[in-house]
């Protein structure tokens, strides 16, 4: 393990070929925050994560995490998984069934030298709300509880990189919503870079700062969450799920109508009353299918959220009947999915000013 790459970056290059599957990725990721590896099943995102962990051995590989070299096929270097300072959260919590929750947590903790422990036991146990579960055996825990113990177990090894392989995929919606707040707190309170594998656009939109979109073992796009999701050239794979994420701030509450006003660069939207206090940050997602376009400001309409915007570009959508329109709403990118017929009737062309009518806003938080 020698220093050779700029600190604060994760450089990963893997190339491997199996019968019927090929992975060929070259990633430069920020060394902090949450990076989502996003794509359909079979896109290679889990394989990519397993390569980073050293659980899968790619033929041609190079991996550096914040200046530490873990893998370099050219130099014949392969640090085995158990010598990499990483935490791994599997899709199923995979707790050791013969050990209590506490002993599961201690399993990893005890194998890390005291001098290298940077994560505090009490902090993690509290962060994931598992204080009352410690003496229980995994078999007596619910799926969500097991996953929380699994996450805590990984964190207690003080990893320099946390890998999460669809940690919510095996859970039902209720359990998902039970865990998501813990993941958000994790992002805010611990300074550990996270690689998060997911096929759920909502999870990615809610948690990630950076996105890598994979398709058939290759990187289709990578970049900041907002810019990447608003790109038009992404595989129409996203289809119905195409949309953008907007970072907003709670401006004020309208108690008479039970609404909350959120502001962001370029505009504001009204949403049903939120519990957050004014000044708090809140992410929301606008699906392209929920945005319609009008040349003039609509009067006598029930749609409250209207934003002045300018057409930036048009691209093919997931069906021949539709087009995707990329808009610039005063600095905030938006996507609209409308019929080709409407696009022609409105005479859409780059530069055209118009009004974006937002039918629905999905709040992520």
């Amino acid at each position, binding site marked *: 393990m020698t220093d050779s790459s700029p600190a604060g970056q994760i450089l990963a290059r893997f190339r491997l070929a199996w019968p019927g599957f090929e992975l060929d990725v070259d990633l430069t990721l920020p060394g902090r925050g949450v990076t989502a590896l996003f794509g359909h099943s079979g896109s290679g995102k889990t394989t990519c994560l397993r390569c980073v*962990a*050293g*659980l899968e051995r790619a033929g041609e590989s190079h991996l550096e995490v914040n200046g530490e070299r873990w893998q370099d096929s050219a130099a014949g270097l392969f640090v*085995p*998984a*158990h*010598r990499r300072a*990483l*935490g*791994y959260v*599997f899709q*199923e*919590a*995979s*707790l*050791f*069934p*013969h050990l209590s929750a506490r002993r599961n947590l201690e*399993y*990893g903790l005890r*194998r*890390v030298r005291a001098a290298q422990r940077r994560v505090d036991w009490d902090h993690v146990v509290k962060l994931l709300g598992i204080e009352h579960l410690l003496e229980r055996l*995994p*078999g007596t825990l619910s799926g969500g509880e*097991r996953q929380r113990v699994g996450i805590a*177990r*990984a964190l207690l*090894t003080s990893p320099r990189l946390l*890998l999460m392989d669809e940690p919510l995929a095996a859970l039902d919606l209720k359990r998902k919503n039970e865990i998501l707040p813990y993941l958000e707190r994790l992002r805010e309170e611990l300074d550990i870079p996270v690689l998060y594998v997911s096929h759920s656009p909502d999870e990615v939109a809610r948690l990630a700062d950076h996105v890598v979109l994979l398709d058939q073992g290759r990187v289709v796009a990578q970049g900041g969450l907002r810019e990447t999701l608003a790109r038009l050239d992404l595989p129409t794979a996203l289809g119905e799920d195409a949309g953008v994420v907007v970072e907003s701030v709670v401006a004020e509450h309208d108690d008479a109508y039970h609404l909350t006003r959120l502001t962001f660069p370029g505009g504001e939207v009204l949403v049903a009353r939120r519990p957050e206090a004014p000044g708090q940050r809140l992410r929301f997602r606008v699906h392209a299918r929920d945005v319609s376009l009008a040349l003039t400001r609509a009067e006598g309409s029930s749609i409250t959220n209207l934003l002045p915007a300018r057409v930036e570009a048009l691209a093919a959508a997931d069906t021949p009947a539709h087009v995707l329109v990329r808009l610039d709403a005063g600095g905030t990118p938006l996507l609209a999915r409308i019929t080709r017929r409407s696009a022609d009737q409105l005479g859409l062309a780059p530069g055209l000013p118009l009004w974006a009518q937002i039918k629905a806003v999905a709040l992520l938080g």
Partner: protein
Amino acid sequence: MPLSVHDIAAIRLTLELASLTTLLLLLIGTPIAWWLARTRSRLKGPVGAIVALPLVLPPTVLGFYLLVTMGPHGPVGQFTQSLGLGTLPFTFAGLVVGSVFYSMPFVVQPLQNAFEAIGERPLEVAATLRAGPWDTFFSVVLPLAKPGFVTASILGFAHTVGEFGVVLMIGGNIPGVTRTVSVQIFDHVEAMEYAQAHWLAGGMVVFSFFVLLALYSSRRFKPGFN
């Protein structure tokens, strides 16, 4: 007293033989079973078949080849003689060697099944929690494979107690050295001492029943990995 001095000596010898054999088999059989459970080598099939041979071979065949190999002109015999140990046939040590081969599949197969049932995931989890391969084996594999070890020990012990042909071939019939219970019963019957044969034979039936009872009762509960 229905049991003679010779009968008691035979029982003690049998228990000693079975205990020692089981212990050795756990030591030798564990790595073999681990290898068989994990390897992708093309040798997996042949090695598995060799280990399982005693299941189908007549004990006399196994005993015959062991006798030839360990005898004064066989390769193992030459080797033990050069070490000044003499030859193994017709000694207790020779009986232990024969029993180890004879009972091998009864230990290796339950262990192999137990290791295979654990699967890849717990090992990967342990690796991501900084446990090296040996550490993983002792802290994860052994506890999870415990039912397999219980089964393997019971079967290995019981099967050694029940052997006859191999003992006769390489052990002969030396009181206190190689005369086990099964051989003693044979002797009683040859000498028309049916009453004494009954005591030992009946004892074997009861013993075997309780061993198998213990085995089948211990299989009620298996913790899953999740």
